[in-house]
């Protein structure tokens, strides 16, 4: 019995591992290409891995030697972190009020929030562009932030509302008994208890901002204000020659923060994704 079980287990591990290889193959290829000398990219026969002698950090040296990529990197960090913090606060406040209080227009507000989760964000790009013009935030890095926040509020509010509902109401009552106000409950009870939820939503938002491409590409002009995804796509001349080595070196470089966040916060990713779904 035991033996059959182990063999069965081994078979499943084998299937999982083989599928896994296929899944991570593209990423490995990206890294391996970034380690090849630029001239070898149209070599024949094409090889998955460079030979040991060939391995070079030349592409990385070039990327890191260009000051502008640091600036692009910093721009991405700045925008993403600022938007994460603002969204976390705004959406928590909304989620808290919606979970705990009745007020006029609440049903409408909630329905509207759910509805906007359905609309593909990009369809609003034209009026939002017009709005950015009016607010004079075209070609402004800070100008990206309110739009990013607005896009992620619906999802974040929806999720955080769910987390707040899981916080026992008795704790609110106890705080009110002690003379606490709505604010006190928010700061002392809700925020601390819903924190894992807020954290998971924030991580998810960070990913969204970090990789956002179409909007930033449309409104940002100056090289020095570009975020990383635009910098990466800028390498890419359709019909001229593309320096794939540089492209992939910069790509690998831009994955580092995401990987760090992911590895350290892996548990919360999952919590955030699933709580909404399991409740249905």
């Amino acid at each position, binding site marked *: 019995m035991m033996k059959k079980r182990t063999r069965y287990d081994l078979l*499943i*591990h084998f*299937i*999982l591992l083989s599928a*896994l290889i296929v*899944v*991570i193959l*593209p*990423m490995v*290829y990206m890294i391996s290409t970034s380690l090849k000398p630029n001239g070898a990219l149209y070599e024949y*026969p*094409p090889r998955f891995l460079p030979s040991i002698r060939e391995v070079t950090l030349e592409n990385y040296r070039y990327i890191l030697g260009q000051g502008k990529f640091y600036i692009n990197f910093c721009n991405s960090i700045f925008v993403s972190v600022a938007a994460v913090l603002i969204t976390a606060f*705004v959406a928590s*406040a*909304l989620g*808290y*009020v919606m979970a705990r*209080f009745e*007020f006029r227009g609440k049903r409408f507000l909630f329905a*509207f929030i759910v509805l*906007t*989760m*359905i*609309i*593909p*964000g*990009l*369809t*609003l*790009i*034209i*009026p939002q562009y017009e*709005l950015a013009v009016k607010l004079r935030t075209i070609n402004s890095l800070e100008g990206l932030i*309110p739009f990013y926040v*607005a896009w992620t*509020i*619906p999802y974040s509010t929806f999720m955080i509302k769910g987390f707040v509902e899981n916080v026992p109401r008795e704790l609110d009552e106890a705080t009110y008994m002690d003379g606490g*106000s*709505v*604010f006190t409950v928010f700061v002392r009870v809700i925020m601390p208890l819903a924190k894992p939820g807020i954290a998971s939503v924030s991580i998810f938002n960070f*990913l969204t901002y*970090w*990789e956002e*491409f*179409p909007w930033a590409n449309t409104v940002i002009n100056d090289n020095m204000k570009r975020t990383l995804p635009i910098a*990466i796509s800028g390498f890419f001349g*359709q019909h001229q020659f593309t320096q*794939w080595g540089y492209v992939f070196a910069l*790509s690998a470089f*831009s994955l580092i923060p*995401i990987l760090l966040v992911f590895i350290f916060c*892996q548990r919360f*990713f*999952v919590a955030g*994704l*699933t709580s*909404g*779904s*399991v409740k*249905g």
Partner: protein
Amino acid sequence: MRISNKSKWQIGLLLLPGVLIFGIFTLYPILKLLIMSFFQWDFKSIAGQQFIGLDNYKEVIQDEYFQTAFVNSILYTLVTVPGQMFLGFLVAMLINSVTKFKVGYRVLYYLPVITSWVIASLVFKYVFNTEGLLNYFLANVVHITEQNVRWLDNRWGGLTVAMFLGIWKGIGWNMVVFLAALQTVPRDLYEAANVDGAGAVRKLFSVTLPSIRGTILFALVMLTIGGFNVFTSIKMITGGEPAHKTDVVLTWMYYKAFSAGKFGYSAALSFIITVVLAILAVIQFNLMQKKDG
């Protein structure tokens, strides 16, 4: 609970930033979009936009390019949504059935999800190049094809690559969602099934799937929206070429707005897509609620 005036103030203050941001940056654009869709609004009419009623809508619906793009979007959704759900569910089942390395698998299978669309698209474009690694592998290593397959050069090839990318990138998300759902299936149901002498397949269909129906519907709604949201991959991989045949609704909308300058047309197009998705979502939400009620 009676709400004091002070509390009302505080509730209002908490609502204010969210409602304000939401109102200015989402609600206003939605209304503006609706208005623009009724006007002739393009590069050449910066000064005086003309009210033209439903003309933009007519133009969109009769436009062959839009029809192609719309069909492409639907096909993309029809292929990628079941594709990633099935594979994601399969992986989740497998991971659920092993005892070791669960976390390791989960992390590694999730990697494509956290890779940005720009990067993933570039990698796929490189791999699926006519002279790329995949064609070399197919023709010279496993000898399945005789000649290099022209993946990126025609409508079906280009869409296929985008679909591969969509599925590849989506498996991890589905895996995590279903893995969590599988934890919620009550153990005693399986035990009851065991007593009845049910096999693995019957357990899957009579116990597992019904128990996670809510999750399946949730994933279905989210992914359908996601399917119509596809933009970056198409823009990066084919750019809509050849001759706009691989455009999807959003890339075509973007082209009409920012390359051809037809803002009114694009606004009408956006609105049509929103309505289509809203209808789809309402249908799907209703399905969900039926399960609850």
